């Protein structure tokens, strides 16, 4: 079951990465990011199970915390941009011409 879990992890990561590249709605891009972090968590849990070492679970714990912090700050930025410019499309947020 371990190899299958890794395959699932790759699939979820790839779907998340595709969403990250292809979608332009800021919130959907954020959700694709959560999907990728989740795929990484799945790989960590699987490697942890393979090696019978719970250190992988600690990593998952930290990644979840980072994901929560990242979601809070990113959503705050999205709300802020929407309040001043009325857009959530990432292509239209080009004031800094990055």
């Amino acid at each position, binding site marked *: 079951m371990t*190899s299958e879990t890794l395959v699932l992890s790759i699939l979820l990561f790839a779907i998340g990465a595709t969403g990250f590249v292809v979608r332009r709605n800021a919130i959907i891009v954020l959700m694709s990011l*959560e999907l990728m972090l989740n795929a990484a968590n799945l790989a960590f*849990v699987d490697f942890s199970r393979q090696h019978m070492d719970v250190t992988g679970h600690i990593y998952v714990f930290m990644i979840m915390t980072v994901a929560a912090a990242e*979601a809070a700050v990113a959503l705050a930025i999205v709300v802020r941009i929407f309040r001043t410019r009325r857009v*959530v499309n990432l292509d239209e947020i080009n004031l800094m011409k990055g």
Partner: protein
Amino acid sequence: MIQAIFFYVFAASAVVMALAVVSARNPIYSAMALIGCLLSVASIFALQSAHLMALLQVMVYAGAIMVLILFVLMLLNLSPQELGERRVTVRRVTGAYLIGAIVTLLMVRLTKHLWAPASALDPNFGTIEEVGMILYTKYLLPFEMVSLLLLAAIIGAVVLTRKEKGDGQ
């Protein structure tokens, strides 16, 4: 045997939900599908005897983070015009193609290195007791630092969304 059946059911549901996340036009549907995907992955965590992580996945991810995202979606209340048109551009096709190439590459690498079956399972593996013990002894400093990170994120979110004079219109 029964574990394998459950694994494939939840894996299929996770992949279908993930596809729905990136393909749905309305972000609300995306968020709902993401909740389903996170719950399926939580079930797989439980199957891999990561009990505490399954619990945290449901409470923190599917609970707290997704409620936050849904809350912001409701707050923005996007109209169909603001959601934008669905169109196929060169960049999108190239992006999907690149991702497909990466998946193929990873799959090829993976099938070359089939892992040995996992060793016999310790009944304590992944329980709250075991993970908690290692988290509060060996990884105490990272644990405390991550709480600082959360504090910084809270302050950042509050400062960013605070209303200032002359804001908005």
